Structures are given as structure tokens and as C-alpha cells.
């Protein structure tokens, strides 16, 4: 059983494949969506999104957005999504700066700090 996985950014569709499972960095913890998952809408924290399909595992760095999960499909709407293999130190730097910039505007200090920390964790996770 597979689910239809769509990853879209405001500018274009980044991926549209049949995936067996999708690992999503949800705002309240990671979750994995597989076929037959209960319909869920969750916001995302900065993290790594993984889609496992017949062609292998594709990982993307996302800086936020939300995911809509149904029994037959997962649509992820991310403002920025970059395939992990395309991440360069310079790009990571700009992503971190972007997140920090966006967080600095928010009133909720704790939430802002958490978002920045999450982004830093992503950077560490992919080893840059």
C-alpha cells in the first residue's frame, strides 16, 4: 500500500510520488504517515522530511509549513524545501538566517527560540 506524497512550495511542485511512508517533523513531535493514517493536519517545525518510496528515500530540509494527511495521501506545503543533497554550508547559513529573521518578529519568545534551535539541530543533523 502506498500513499500519494506531494511536496509543494509556493513557487512550484517539488515532488509528487507514490510513497510507502512519509516522516514528518510535526510541530508537536515527529510522525510517520503511512497508508490508512487518520486524517490529520499538523504544522511543521524546521526539520527533515523523509519520503520512502520504491525509488529509495528522499530527504528534504523544510523550514516550516504544514502537512495534510489523509488515508490515501500526504500533501506537505512548505515555504522552503531543499533536498538534503543540495544543501551547502552557504545555503544552510541562509536558511538559518531566514528562520532567525522570521522568529525575531514573533512576540512569543520561547516559541521563537525553539524554532531557531530546531533549525540549528537540522544543521547539525546533516553535518554542516
Amino acid at each position, binding site marked *: 500500500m502506498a500513499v500519494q506524497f506531494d511536496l509543494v512550495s509556493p*513557487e512550484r511542485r517539488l515532488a509528487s510520488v507514490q510513497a510507502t511512508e512519509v516522516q514528518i517533523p510535526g510541530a508537536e513531535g515527529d510522525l510517520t504517515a503511512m497508508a490508512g493514517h487518520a486524517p490529520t493536519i499538523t504544522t511543521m517545525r524546521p526539520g527533515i522530511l523523509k519520503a520512502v518510496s520504491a525509488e529509495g528515500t528522499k530527504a528534504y530540509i523544510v523550514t516550516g509549513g504544514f502537512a495534510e494527511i489523509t488515508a490515501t495521501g500526504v500533501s506537505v506545503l512548505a515555504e522552503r524545501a531543499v533536498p538534503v543533497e543540495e544543501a551547502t554550508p552557504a545555503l544552510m547559513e541562509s536558511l538559518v538566517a531566514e528562520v532567525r529573521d522570521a522568529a525575531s518578529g514573533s512576540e512569543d519568545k520561547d516559541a521563537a527560540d525553539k524554532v531557531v534551535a530546531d533549525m540549528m539541530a537540522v544543521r547539525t543533523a546533516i553535518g554542516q
Partner: protein
Amino acid sequence: MPSLKDLKNRIGSVKNTRKITKAMQMVAAAKLRRAQDAAVQARPYAERMNAVMAGLASGVGQSSSAPRLLAGTGRDQVHLLIVMTAERGLCGGFNSSIARLARVKANELLAAGKTVKILTVGKKGREQLKRDLSQHFVGHVDLTEVKRIGYANAQGIARDVLARFDANEFDVATLFYNRFQSVISQIPTAQQIIPAKFEGDASTALYDYEPSEEAILTDLLPRGVATQIFTALLENGASEQGARMSAMDNATRNAGDMINKLTIQYNRSRQAAITKELIEIISGAEAL
């Protein structure tokens, strides 16, 4: 009666004009294709976004705890008009039609005793509205340097608008832009973005929300504003190129007609001159 030389110069200059308009038309056609592609690529995101928000809004919308971006400030006194036009001219009635729609709306609101604030995107609209509405201008976004409209541009505008909303500078925000219909038809559109309004029926599928519905909605609404602005920018970009393409097509055709007319006039004058000369020679010979 212009001399032969004058006519010849005239034909030459019209031919040059035709070359320029033809080139502009072809450039616009190429840009139009790119702009349309961008608009199509952006559609899935906007559609999903809209569907999810419409679903959420129908659930949360009525409660008193609804976010301000959805419920509004409860007043209807200060209106922000975001007028999107092109940075360049020579695109037929494209800029004027948006400016006209915005002006009508502004005058309507002013007549009803409301306060009007205008944020212009693109300098052509600013120039047109400057004459009678310049005292209502609150800001301007310049996209002259932007070659290809990206989401970042829309985010910039959205951030500005949201900051103004948070500072209680306005109650209602409306976007003015041209919706792309086809190359020959663009529809000037006014779209209210704050408080948020959703088209279409809300999908009533039952979802689990994580975190709560309110929290998601609070997170999504500002993104929704940016998405709507982005969609409008793209539609406007495609419309601009479409309008320019048809305007330049007309100009090229007109120049062609004009060249034909001038050429006929030129040939006639030349013939007349030759005939006159012949008559002079013959009558001279007969006189002897």
C-alpha cells in the same frame, strides 16, 4: 503636399517603429509563457492552502476566539487598498484599468465617510493615482529591479501589510490586480484579503488537528495573506505580458497599414512628378 524626400523619410521612420513594436511583441510573448508557467506552478500550493484554511475557518470562524486576521477588528472604518500595477508602460489599458477600479472604489469609500489608505505596488499605478489621491498614499513597493517575481517578494509585501494591521493602521485590506483570462482579456479584480474571506465550500472532512485548530489557523493566516499576494502578483505579471503582447500586436499592424498608405502616396507623387515633367517637355517641343 510633402515632398518625395519627406515621404521617404516618413516611411523609413514608421518602418523602424514597426521593427521595435514587433520585437517588443515577441519579447512579451516569451515572457508571457514564462509568467503563465509560474502561475500554473504556483497553483497547487495556493489551492491546498485555501482549502485547508476554508475548512479551518468554517470551524473556528464563528467563535469569539477567532484570530483577528479572520474575524477582523470589528470595525470597517479604515480601508487599505493595495494597488498592483506594472513597472512599465506600453501595455495598452492594463495599468489604467486597475487604476480606474481602485479610484472608483476609493471615491466610493471616501463618499461613505471612510478613511482610505493606499499602498501601491508598481510605479505606473502610483503615477496615475497621484493626481487626485496622493494624500492617501501610505507606502510604495518598487519591483523595478525584480526580474522574476519570487515568493520572497510577496512575503516582503505581506510582512509590511501585516505589520500595519498589527499596529491597527487599518481594518480592511483589499487587493487590486488584473486576473489573467487570456491574451486579449484581463479582468481587473478587487479581492479582500483582511479579514480573510474564502471562496468555495469548506471541505468538511474530519481532521485531527495538531496542535489545536486555533493554533494552526493563527499560524496559517499570515501565510495565507502572503500566498494570496503572491498569486495576485503572478496573475498580474501574466496579465501585463498578455496586455503588452496584444497592444504591440495592434501597434505593429497599425504601422504596417500606415506604411502601405504612405507608400501609395509616395508612388503617386512620384508618378505625378514624372507626368508633370513629360508634359513640360512635350508642350515645350510643341511650342517650337
